């Protein structure tokens, strides 16, 4: 869904306006303007898309992300159709009829069961959804904060700029995982808080610096001056002219934030520090605390599916981000052939 980004700045057009007699003429032209903007956005999106598709790695990572999205959808569907919750529930299920746990893969349990007799495939699929929720929440928080901070710092400059940039410097210098470990000692971290913390750290950290420098280059463009001369308020200019132009770069950093969020969750779960019922990290944690990892390849299904999923999804978002980088940042594009 593409929403024209011009509503909030125009008085009387904000969504909160009570419905009155519609001013047909103004409404119509505004509607056309919106349409034109959508068309323009669509065209530039198509151009960017075709560049993105040229990157083999970019396409591959998109396919991988799509595959995981399917996996996330598959779990509730399977639970509703062929899996009964007594056996297949990722947390409370128990696979009866196995002589010992963990049981190796079989037709009934394609990826075997874990030391507590729970179906590994079900755990894997169930966790996929929460990884997406976590990653995307964190990314949205990061981008919302970083875009605002970047635009505001670049637009106003001076002490506001200095404050946010020093803050970002400070946050960059903080090792995130270590900080999260400390936080987990003091507070009960669940998935949502984790996403929030990662999002806030990312948003006020490095992403803000990069978006600010981008916003600075937008700020000096003639159309910003034109908007100011035309009487656009600060708020209007930031919202309508600067932020929309920051969005492509924001999208790029969203991809990277997803990677770091999923990674952080997995590490903290692996260390047993998170208040989460099931996740890829917890699956490995369970196997590790049970001492099954040093059995080498014997209990491979306890660690390979989860470990590979974490690595694959993280690198898919990361490589996707890099492919996007070549779109957003034309200097990296290959010149010929």
């Amino acid at each position: 869904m593409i929403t024209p980004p011009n509503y909030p700045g125009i008085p009387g057009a904000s969504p909160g306006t009570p419905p009155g007699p519609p001013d047909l003429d103004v409404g119509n032209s505004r509607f056309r303007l919106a349409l034109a903007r959508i068309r323009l956005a669509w065209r530039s999106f198509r151009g960017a898309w075709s560049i993105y598709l040229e990157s083999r790695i970019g396409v591959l990572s998109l396919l991988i992300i799509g595959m995981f999205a399917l996996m996330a959808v598959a779990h509730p569907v399977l639970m509703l159709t062929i899996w009964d919750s007594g056996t297949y529930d990722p947390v409370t299920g128990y696979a009866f009829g196995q002589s010992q746990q963990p049981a190796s893969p079989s037709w009934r349990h394609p990826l075997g069961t874990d030391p507590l007799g729970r179906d590994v495939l079900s755990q894997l699929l169930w966790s996929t959804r929460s990884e997406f929720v976590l990653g995307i929440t964190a990314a949205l928080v990061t981008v919302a904060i970083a875009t605002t901070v970047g635009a505001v710092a670049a637009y106003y400059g001076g002490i506001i700029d200095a404050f946010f940039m020093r803050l970002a410097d400070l946050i960059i210098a903080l090792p995130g995982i270590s900080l999260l470990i400390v936080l987990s000692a003091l507070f009960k971290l669940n998935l949502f808080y984790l996403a929030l913390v990662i999002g806030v750290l990312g948003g006020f950290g490095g992403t803000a610096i990069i978006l600010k420098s981008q916003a600075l280059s937008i700020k000096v463009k003639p159309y910003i001056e034109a908007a100011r001369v035309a009487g656009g308020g600060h708020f209007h200019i930031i919202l309508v002219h600067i932020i929309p132009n920051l969005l492509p770069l924001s999208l790029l950093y969203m991809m990277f934030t997803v990677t770091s969020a999923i990674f952080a969750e997995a590490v903290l779960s692996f260390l047993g520090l998170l208040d989460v019922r099931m996740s890829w990290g917890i699956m490995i944690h369970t196997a590790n605390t049970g001492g099954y990892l040093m059995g080498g390849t014997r209990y491979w299904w306890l660690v390979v599916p989860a470990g590979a999923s974490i690595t694959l999804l993280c690198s898919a978002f990361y490589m996707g981000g890099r492919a996007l980088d070549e779109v957003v940042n034309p200097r990296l594009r290959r010149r010929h052939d």
Partner: protein
Amino acid sequence: MTGYLVRRAGQMVLTLFLIITFAFFLVQAQPGDYATFYALDPDIPPEVKQQLRASFGLDKPLWEQYLIHLKNTVTGDFGVSFGHFPRPVMDVLVERVPRTAVLFLSATVLSFYIGFFLGKAIAWRRGGWLEYTATISGATLFTVFTPAFALMMIWIFAFRLGWLPVGKFLDPLVWRHADVSANYVFGQMLLTAFLFTAFAFLVLYLLKRTGRVGLARWAGPLIAVGGVAALFVWSFSGVGGLALDILKHMVLPIVTLTLISFAGTMLLTRNSMLETVREDYVMAARAKGLPEKMVRDRHAARNALLPVVTSLVYSLVFAIDGSVIIEVVFSWPGTGLTLLQAVRTEDLPLVMGAMVFIGLFSLLAHAIVDVLYVYLDPRIRYQ
């Protein structure tokens, strides 16, 4: 330049102050305080509890507690560790921090060197098999789930091949009859490493000062002689076997940490290099008839290094986090493992101490990178 350094040091002090403040308010924000934690611990005798309460100023108003916290932190008094009772936190950390430093420093230097080398190679010849292999394997290693990867390394090199020990800092069997402490041997090893590095730099510097091209050739052999001399001294010191044991335990964690962190530098170098190869001075260098290798290394890569060093901060933070994970998986008794154990046992004073030290660590690394940058870029050096 002096002005810059002074300003930079000032910023560091300020940042450290912010971190300490942040730590204080974190503790304040969580339910309960130090006193409740100590009160819950049956191992601590009541009179010690009373004494601790007084030393943290828990009966005083908040701002006074804050001042006491500041004073305590600055003087290195983080209180008594709860998990290692009755050792003070500082005592535990003084033992653990150098171990992390060694792990972190060697891995960082190695991964930077490898990353930079590969990055410039793949940017120089685009589209070859090297670019694909290096990019994909680099990105995979960069995003690989570190604990799983570390476990895999242990499994391959310690269990299957049996080349290296499984984990930990030393082998108790080797040390059973040793009459020196591990900390002493490790300290001597650090001293040797430091002296050797200083010697190598001195040789390079002095040979460069003479200004004769032919002499640079002697740098390698001279440094090698220094290394052999150091080994010679060690093998007759009587504790050489013990040092070797520690070394053996160091290899796998360092290799693993290097593998997971070189890719960041590699990909950055590649991007940065793709921009510098289009610069006019690279074209000019080629026009001057310099050999391709010189055009690449002395001009394109030397300039590509600047943005890479600027973003080294990210890599450093990544490596610090990586070393925490590696320490946990390899049971390497450094700051990271200490932090995790403290978190698990709710040893709050030790958590705070470890956190301040990790913060200090990253600040120092940050500052070193900044100074390095100033040294590398003459445009800043002479401002």
